[in-house]
């Protein structure tokens, strides 16, 4: 029996993901249609809600900043064959690092607080991911299960810390006291009037720099080569003289550090204090972003912008189209993960067949296969 020929590279990298993505949006549109609303109307509402004004665009960029961090975290681990599902927990505990630096250096200028808080976020997030990495590398426990467990442990830990350790003496709510105005990370609105009243801040530039940095790390350094080799073939990596367990631990720590930067954006730049659940599932959005961006920083940048737009547009959606709540965005996100991630292979055989039909040298083979298929 003849075998389908593999797809040309451009079809594999661009066409197939685009088809999957289209399917995700078509199904989302069907959900909107099912409740008696016009999907095009909804889409327009999301688009204007996300890009319609400086205010809307500022919020879109603020969400996108978080999603770049978590998307890169998932992608970096994925290149080493690791599925870091614990971005949420890593970002959440990283908040402890940021708030510790900010409150200890109370009254210090932000130019000093900012780099230290950034390092603290990366350090604490990194540690929270290092433990699952260590357990995978040295004890053989599956990193997916451990990171899931660590998400829940992080949630419990943070509730405890906010209720018993960090709670402001004057307040009732489980949240830390406010960071002094001088120490807060400046928002872009302070320099650019276009972004008036929006939370997008300097961490956006860090996110963009990291897109470039992670690209360079993965494809232009020896370590990047080692981690990709591990991801492709652990045995080959070992025979090439790399220490697999060391790479696993370093990659997981880096991945956690990237996820931890969500806390840098949220705590030092937006909330200006530590609050419950400030991560708001950014870690899970990171999975969708990485899948959609095909684990490439360029794709991740675009996907993060798209999801930022969906989140911001989704917030506005309910005011424009009655009945369409922001849960619609969660549904779209789930469908993107389902179709571009788990059901990635849906169109592959069909597409491969179509490609063979349209290349003269394979056409006969394809026809033969078709008739053989219909007989069996």
């Amino acid at each position, binding site marked *: 029996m003849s075998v389908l020929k593999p797809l040309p590279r451009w079809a594999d990298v661009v066409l197939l993901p685009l088809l999957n993505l289209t399917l995700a949006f078509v199904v989302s549109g069907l*959900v909107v249609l099912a409740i008696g609303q016009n999907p095009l109307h909804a889409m327009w509402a999301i688009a204007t809600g996300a890009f319609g004004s400086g205010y809307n665009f500022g919020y879109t960029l603020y969400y996108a900043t978080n999603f770049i961090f978590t998307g890169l975290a998932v992608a970096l681990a994925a290149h080493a064959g690791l599925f870091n599902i614990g971005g949420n927990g890593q970002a959440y505990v990283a908040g402890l690092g940021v708030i510790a630096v900010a409150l200890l250096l109370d009254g210090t200028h932000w130019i000093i607080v900012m780099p230290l808080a950034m390092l603290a976020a990366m350090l604490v997030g990194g540690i929270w991911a290092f433990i699952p990495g260590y357990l995978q590398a040295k004890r053989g426990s599956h990193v997916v299960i451990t990171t899931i467990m660590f998400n829940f442990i992080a949630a419990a830990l943070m509730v405890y810390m906010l209720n018993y350790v960090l709670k402001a003496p004057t307040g009732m709510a489980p949240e830390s006291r406010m960071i002094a105005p001088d120490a807060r990370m400046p928002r872009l609105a302070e320099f650019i009037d276009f972004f008036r009243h929006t939370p997008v801040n300097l961490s956006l530039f860090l996110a963009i720099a990291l897109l470039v940095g992670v690209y360079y790390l993965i494809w232009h350094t020896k370590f990047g080569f080692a981690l990709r080799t591990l991801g492709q073939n652990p045995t080959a990596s070992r025979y090439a003289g790399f220490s697999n367990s060391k790479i696993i631990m370093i990659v997981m720590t880096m991945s956690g550090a990237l996820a931890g930067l969500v806390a840098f954006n949220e705590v030092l730049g937006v909330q200006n204090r530590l609050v419950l659940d400030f991560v708001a599932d950014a870690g899970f959005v990171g999975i969708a972003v990485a899948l959609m961006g095909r684990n490439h920083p360029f794709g991740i940048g675009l996907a993060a912008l798209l999801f930022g737009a969906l989140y911001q547009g989704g917030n506005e959606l309910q005011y424009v189209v009655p009945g369409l709540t922001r849960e619609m965005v*969660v549904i779209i*996100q*789930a469908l993107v993960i389902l179709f571009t991630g*788990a059901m*990635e292979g849906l169109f592959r055989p069909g597409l491969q067949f179509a490609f063979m039909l349209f290349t003269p040298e394979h056409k006969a083979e394809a026809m033969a296969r078709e008739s053989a298929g219909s007989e069996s």
Partner: protein
Amino acid sequence: MDLNFLISMLDATLRLSTPLLLACLAGLYSERAGVFDIGLEGKMLMAAFAAAATAAVTGSAWAGLFVGMSVSVLTALLQGAAAISLKGNQLIAGVAINMLAAGLTTFLGQQWFRQGGRTPPVSGDARFSSIQLPFAAELRNVPVVGEIYSVIISGHSILVYVAFLMVPLTAWILFRTRFGLRLRAVGENPKAVDTAGISVRRLRYQAVLITGLLCGMAGAYFSIAQGAGFGNNMTAGKGFIALAALIFAKWRPVAAMFTCLLFGFLDALQIRLQSTPLPVLSDVPVQLIQALPYILTVVLLAGFIGKAVGPKAGGVPYTKER
């Protein structure tokens, strides 16, 4: 600690471990067949919503259970299609299912009932009421034994008894029937099963189907037996505790029951501690008890207390050789 306290704790333990046990056994079938399932949570949530919505509209708990289980089975089959037929990443499929359930249940709940994502409260026949076992009332006054029988064992909804009967049934199916042997084989060495002329795909779909049925029952238990109506995200991570229990029990049914009872007891304890602090445990934060199932599972996985090794072919889609 007095006896009354202990009895009420054990009673609560039984109620709280039931959904864990159902979800845990659900996961056991598919994971034993080599399909990792981190989507237990999502299937339960879908079922909880569907069951409550149906029960609220029809007024029948049985109709609710039926629809809840059907929705869960359909979700499981979607997940199965991705994981088995399309050979997709099983973990990503699970993540997608969880997210889809979280979004869809709140969204549809708001669309249909306009109560902020909740369903209308269900009562009377729309809910599984507690069953009094024979002689429960008569034996109530007999010290110790009577109290244990009438309070702890009697007076639960039928789903509680079904859940615990599923344990010996699962053990029997898994270890004493041809289907169970094949199921375990397909999780360990699918190629051998295939060579013996048995369809790996068919077996895995059967396993995923059972997973759907049991998750559906667990979900329905949340909304129309334990609770009275569906609330946003009402499964609250129980699907992941069930997953932890499954690993903790090393994928064995009887051990799964004891693990779920332990985790259910911890849950009962932390609920109790939130209202009335106990003298012995006053220094232990509630959050530590909440996190304990996860911490224990991590410690077990790390191999510090025994070793949990899952089915060998777990997580790997099977490709038939040509």
